[in-house]
C-alpha cells in the first residue's frame, strides 16, 4: 500500500473524484437535455418543464466540477494536460462548442422574458442537441486517453497525430457509453424530482430503456477495448481487482434496475450513481499508474512537491467552503 500512498497518486485520485462529481451532477444535466430532445407522448411539455426546473438552479454549479478537473490537471500534471490538449485539440474544441451552446441556449430559453413559443422552442432545440453531442465528444476524448493513443511520440503527419487517436471505433464506443450513462442518470434522478405519478412513470420507463442502452454500450466498449485499448482492456479483464469490481458494478446495476422496477426511486438513484462511479473508477484503476498511457505516468509527470502540497491544502480549504454550500444548495432545490 505504501507505494500507492504518494502525493501524486493522491492528487490523481482527487482528479478522478472531481471527474466523478462532474459525471454524476454535470453529466445528469446533459442527460436532462437528451430527455428534452426525446420528450414525447401526452406529457411531452410537462416533461420538459420538469427537466428545466430540475436543472435550472444547479447546472452552473454542477458545471464547475469540470473546471476543477481541468485546473487540477494542469496544476498538478502540467505536461499531461499539454499533451492531451495538443493531441485532442479537435474533439476538445468541438466539445467546447457544445458546452457553450448547451449553457447559453438553456439560459436563453429560461430567461427569454415573455413566453414566446417559437423562440423558446428553437433555443430548447439547440440546448437539447448540444446536450446530446457534448457527452459523446467528452466520451471520445476519454476513450482516446484510455486507448493509449494520446501521444505524439514516433508519429508524423496531421492525421496520425491529431485525428487518428480519437477517430476509432473504441472512442465512439466510449462516446456512446458516456451518453447512455448521462441519460440513464438523468432519467433516474428525474423520477425523484416529481411527485406526479404519471411523470414518474414516464421517466421510469426512460430510465429502464437507458439502462439497457448502458448495458449494450458497456459490453461493446469492453470488447472493443481488447483491440483498441489493450492497457485498459487487460486491466478490466485480468487485474486481481477486476472480478470484484465487475461484481460490484453488476450488483449496483441490478439493484438500480430492480429498484426502478419496484418504483423505489430513492434507492434507484443511489444505485445508479454507484454504478456509474464504479465504471469510472474501474477505468481509472485499469490505466494506473499511467495518467496518459502509454508514456506519461502519474509519478513521471507530477508537478514539483510544493505545488502538489499547496494544491492539497487548497482543495482541503476549498472543500470546507464548498461542501456546506453545495449541501445548502441541494437542500433548497432537491429532495
Amino acid at each position, binding site marked *: 500500500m505504501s507505494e500507492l500512498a504518494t502525493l501524486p497518486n493522491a492528487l490523481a485520485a482527487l482528479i478522478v473524484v472531481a471527474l466523478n462529481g462532474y459525471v454524476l451532477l454535470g453529466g445528469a444535466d446533459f442527460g436532462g437535455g437528451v430527455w428534452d430532445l426525446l420528450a414525447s407522448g401526452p406529457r411531452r411539455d410537462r416533461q420538459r418543464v420538469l427537466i428545466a426546473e430540475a436543472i*435550472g*438552479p*444547479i447546472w*452552473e*454549479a454542477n*458545471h*464547475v466540477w*469540470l*473546471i*476543477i478537473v*481541468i*485546473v*487540477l490537471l*494542469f*496544476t498538478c500534471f*502540467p505536461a499531461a*494536460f*499539454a*499533451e*492531451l*490538449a*495538443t493531441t485532442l*485539440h479537435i474533439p*476538445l*474544441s468541438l466539445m*467546447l*462548442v457544445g*458546452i*457553450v*451552446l*448547451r*449553457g*447559453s441556449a*438553456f*439560459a*436563453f430559453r429560461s*430567461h427569454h*422574458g415573455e413566453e414566446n413559443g417559437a423562440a423558446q422552442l428553437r433555443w430548447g432545440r439547440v440546448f437539447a442537441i448540444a446536450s446530446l453531442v457534448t457527452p459523446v465528444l467528452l466520451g471520445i476524448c476519454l476513450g482516446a486517453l484510455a486507448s493509449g493513443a494520446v501521444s*505524439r511520440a514516433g508519429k508524423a503527419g*496531421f492525421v496520425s*497525430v*491529431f485525428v487518428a487517436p480519437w477517430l476509432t471505433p473504441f472512442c465512439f464506443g466510449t462516446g456512446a457509453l458516456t451518453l447512455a450513462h448521462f441519460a440513464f442518470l438523468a432519467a433516474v434522478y428525474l423520477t425523484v424530482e416529481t411527485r406526479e405519478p404519471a411523470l414518474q412513470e414516464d421517466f421510469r420507463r426512460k430510465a429502464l430503456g437507458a439502462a439497457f442502452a448502458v448495458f449494450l454500450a458497456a459490453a461493446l466498449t469492453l470488447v472493443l477495448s481488447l483491440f483498441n485499448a489493450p492497457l485498459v482492456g487487460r486491466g478490466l479483464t485480468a487485474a486481481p481487482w477486476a472480478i470484484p469490481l465487475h461484481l460490484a458494478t453488476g450488483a449496483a446495476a441490478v439493484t438500480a434496475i430492480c429498484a426502478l422496477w419496484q418504483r423505489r426511486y430513492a434507492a434507484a438513484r443511489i444505485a445508479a450513481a454507484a454504478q456509474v462511479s464504479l465504471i469510472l473508477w474501474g477505468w481509472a484503476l485499469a490505466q494506473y499508474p499511467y495518467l496518459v498511457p502509454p508514456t506519461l505516468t502519474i509519478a513521471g509527470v507530477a*508537478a*514539483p512537491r*510544493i*505545488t502538489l502540497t*499547496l*494544491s492539497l491544502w*487548497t*482543495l482541503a*480549504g*476549498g472543500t470546507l*467552503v*464548498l461542501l456546506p*454550500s*453545495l449541501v*445548502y*444548495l441541494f437542500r*433548497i*432545490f432537491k429532495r
Partner: protein
Amino acid sequence: MTDLFAARSQMAMSLGFHIIFAVIGIAMPVLMVVAERRWQRTGDAIFLELARRWAKGTAILFAVGAVSGTVLSFELGLLWPGFMAEAGAIIGMPFSLEGFAFFTEAIFLGIYLYGWERVSRRAHLSAGVLVAISGALSGIFVVLVNAWMNTPTGFDLENGRLVRLDPIAAMLTPTAFAQTLHMTLAAYAATGFVVAGIHALGLLADPLNGFHRRALAVALLVGAPAALLQPLSGDLCARVVARTQPAKLAAMESHFKTERGAPLKIGGWPSGASGETRYAIEIPKGLSLLAFHDPDAEVIGLDAFAPRDRPPVAVVHIAFQIMVALGFFMAALAAWSLALTARRQELSSRRWLLRALVLAAPMGFLCIEAGWVVTEVGRQPWAIHGVLRTADAVTPMPGLVVPFTLFTLLYCFLGFIVSWLLYRQVLKSPSAKETDLAVEPSHGVSG
C-alpha cells in the same frame, strides 16, 4: 494568417468576449444586492422590481460568462501547451483558488436567482452578498495569473526551465496589487456606467420615471466611486510597469529614445519605421514625472531593446490613449454626479448629465478591452515576460485559423443574441404611469 497569429487572435477574441461577461458577473451582484437591501429597508417595491429585473439579465450574462470562461481554461492548453507545460505548476494555485471562488459564486447565484420564494429574505440577501464577494475574488485570482506573466517571480531559471518553484511568491508579484486593484475597480466602473447609461436614456424620454431614477442612483453608487478612483490606480499600474516592464511602458507612451526628462506624448500616430510619433501633443518632462514622479528621471525607450524584443508600438500606444481618454471622461462624469448628489440635487432632472451618461455607457467596456490590449500586446513577444516567447508556447496543431473562425462566429452569434435579449428586457421597463403610485410614499429615500 500564420498559426501563431491565429492562436493569438483566438485567445484575444476569447478573452475579449469573456471579460465583458466576467466583469458584469463581478459587479451586477453588487447592484442587485444594493437594490434588494433598499427594498428590505424601505419597503419600496420598485427596488424589488429592479433587483429582480437585474437578476434576470445577470442570469443570461452569467451563463455565457461561465461557458466562455470554460473555453478559456481549455484554450490555455489547446493553444498554448508550451506555456502550460512550463507554467502550470507555478500558476495553478491562483487558478485553483479561482475554481473554488467560482464554485461558490455559481452555487449562491443559483440560490439567488431561483430562491426568491424558497429561502428567507435574509438568506436571499446573504446569497447575493456571497455572489458579489466570490465574484470579485475569482476576478482577482485570475488577474494574479496575468500579473505573474507580466512580472514572473517565485522560481529560478535553469536552461530555460523553471525550477525551485514557489507558487506563493508567484502570486505576490510586483504587479499583483496594482493590476488586481485596477481590474476590480474597472469592473465596478464599467458595469455601473453601462447600467447608468441605459437608465439615463430612459430618464431622458420619461423624466419622472421612478424605476429609472432609482436604477440610476444605484448604478452610480457602484460605478462613480470606482471611476473616480480609477486614474489613481492607473497611475500606480503605470509606475509599476515603468519599473518592471520598460519595453511595455515605452510602447504605451510611444517613447522611442531613452532620455532624461522625457516628454509625455498625448495622442499621435507612432511610426515604427522612423521612430517618430506624429501629431502628438507633447508635455515636456511629463513622462518622467508621471512614470517616476521625478521630472528628470531617465525613461528607457524602445531603442534599448533589440527589434525582436519590442512589442508592436502603434497598437499598444493607441489602445493606451483610448483607455486613458475614456477613463478620464468617466472620472469627470463621476465627479460631477457625486458633487450633485453631495449637494442633494436630483440627478434625473439634469439633462446634460443624463446625455453625458448615455454617451459614457459603453466607455467602461471600451476601456477594459483597450486596457487588456495594452497589457497583453504590450508584453509581446513574451508569453511569460523575459522567460518564454509566445512563439515558443504555441501548439504544433496546424490550421489554427479554423478554430479561430469557428469560435469567432460562435461568439458573434452569442453576442448578437445576448444583446437582443437584453435590449428587449430594457424595452420592457415600466413606464412612469406604472411607477407613479409606488414613487410617492418612498420619496426621499431613493437618492
